[in-house]
């Protein structure tokens, strides 16, 4: 059977500075990060013949043709899965490259400055939010923190998961961010800080919620053969998959609201890559909320359903622990670049370029995406 395993590599990664706001437009930021990734791959923009922009970003493949003068764009696609989009785009890019449709696919994502009021309006207009918009927004369920709070509360009630365990995820990301000069939040966070942060949507405190950021990141996917010519140690995509939960557009109607789409994708990605959980040296896990990290760890099979709270405790997910998670600080403390920054970090870890926060001898790692109420994506990479 045809397999995508080890057909492609991430040859280039790039990003802009990250901050709360930027004077640059979303398009400018996206192009800046793209250029950095293309340069990092040892390519020029003219080499790019495939583009996957961020589906929720309002930027289209044509923008890259126009600005980079791409001579022969042969492949373009969108993967509209919210924060699961970038890793799902790796699957699309890999399919395009492995089948010879394109040679070098650019996956790019930028977020411009955004004001709080616009977020709920923008959400309400997204087609994948239609059911929520029709039936839940009128009663006051308007934003992701509120959608996911119902999942987190049920998990706590069923399994005894605590806010202190959610705090472990936030504090771990913060500790890692202190070793990352690009990170927006580098001030130490204690358990008391987490518990004292204001309640947003119970059980989610402010420090359970990700940052809002402006910035961009991008990666280039090339065939393994072409990757041999790239200036960096190739990082191969061993396994990649996307998965969707039951009742994907309404958490309220989901038979098991503690199970995410990644539960379907993870076994596929692990099998494709031919790795076991114990082989994973580092994991960059989509962290729009602390609870979502804990739930994905369970759904990927690192522990049984309900044991995520124990799993993230006692330093297991810290650098030096059994499974270092979000070594860059994640969306919680580095920046919210919708998980494209997680892909960039995994590639740098597997190249061995992470300096103080480098996971020693990292050979195999994974990156996940999560978005649009439960969609999931996962890529297992190795050097």
């Amino acid at each position: 059977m045809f397999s995508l395993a080890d057909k492609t590599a991430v040859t280039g990664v790039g990003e802009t500075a990250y901050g709360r706001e930027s004077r640059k437009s979303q398009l400018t930021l996206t192009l800046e990060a793209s250029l950095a990734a293309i340069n990092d791959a040892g390519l020029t923009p003219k080499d790019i013949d495939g583009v996957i922009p961020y589906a929720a970003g309002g930027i289209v493949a044509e923008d890259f043709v126009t600005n980079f003068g791409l001579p022969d764009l042969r492949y373009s696609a969108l993967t509209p899965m919210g924060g699961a989009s970038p890793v799902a785009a790796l699957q699309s890019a890999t399919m395009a490259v492995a089948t010879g449709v394109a040679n070098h696919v650019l996956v790019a994502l930028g977020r411009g400055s955004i004001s709080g009021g616009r977020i709920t309006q923008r959400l309400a207009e997204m087609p994948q939010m239609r059911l929520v918009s029709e039936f839940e927004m009128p009663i006051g369920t308007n934003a992701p923190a509120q959608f996911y709070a119902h999942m987190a509360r049920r998990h706590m009630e069923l399994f005894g998961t605590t806010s202190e365990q959610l705090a472990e995820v936030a504090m771990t990301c913060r500790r890692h961010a202190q070793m990352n000069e690009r990170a927006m939040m580098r001030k130490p966070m204690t358990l008391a800080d987490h518990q004292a942060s204001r309640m947003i949507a119970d059980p989610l405190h402010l420090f359970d919620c990700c940052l809002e950021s402006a910035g961009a990141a991008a990666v280039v996917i090339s065939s393994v053969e072409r990757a041999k010519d790239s200036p960096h140690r190739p990082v191969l995509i061993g396994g990649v998959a996307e998965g969707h939960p039951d009742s994907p557009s309404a958490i309220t109607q989901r038979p098991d609201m503690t199970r995410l789409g990644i539960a379907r994708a993870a076994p596929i990605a692990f099998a494709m890559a031919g790795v076991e959980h114990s082989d994973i040296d580092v994991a960059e896990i989509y962290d729009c909320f602390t609870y979502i990290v804990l739930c994905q760890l369970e759904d990927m099979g690192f522990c049984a359903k309900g044991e995520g709270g124990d799993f993230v405790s006692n330093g297991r997910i810290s650098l030096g622990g059994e499974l270092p998670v979000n070594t860059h600080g994640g969306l919680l403390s580095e920046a919210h670049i919708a998980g494209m920054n997680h892909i960039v970090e995994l590639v740098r870890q597997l190249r061995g370029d992470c300096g103080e926060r480098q996971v020693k001898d990292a050979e195999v790692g994974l990156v996940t995406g999560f978005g649009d109420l439960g969609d999931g994506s996962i890529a297992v990479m190795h050097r």
Partner: protein
Amino acid sequence: MSASHDQLPEKPRPEYSDENQPYWDGLREHKLLVQRCGGCNTLRHYPRPLCDGCYSLEYDWTELSGSGKVHSWTVSHHPFHPGFKRETPYVTVTVDLAEGLRLQGVLEGNDASALAIGREVELTFNDVDAELTLPGFRLV
């Protein structure tokens, strides 16, 4: 108080479609109506065109009891939509209805302290204005 305090943005309202109109019309008459498949009689919610079991496009509407048990909940402290600014904190419950579907609504009295999975609740009808009634719940 400043004038702006009195003029919060309007809360979001449902957009009516062929599929959801009977549901909202039912609430206005203080009835909970859901779709029933014309092919296999399975109840479904939220409203949609097709039965995922037998693929029948036929359906009618049937009234549910409104009694149910708590599945989960949240207390919203931050007004993500500014229209809800004066109501925070408010409690929203996801409820397993007796007939097997789920419904979300604001909990009357706004006290989450008595909530637990399986806690019995019943549907309330919150009349916003002549045009719109929203579902809510109270403890029983």
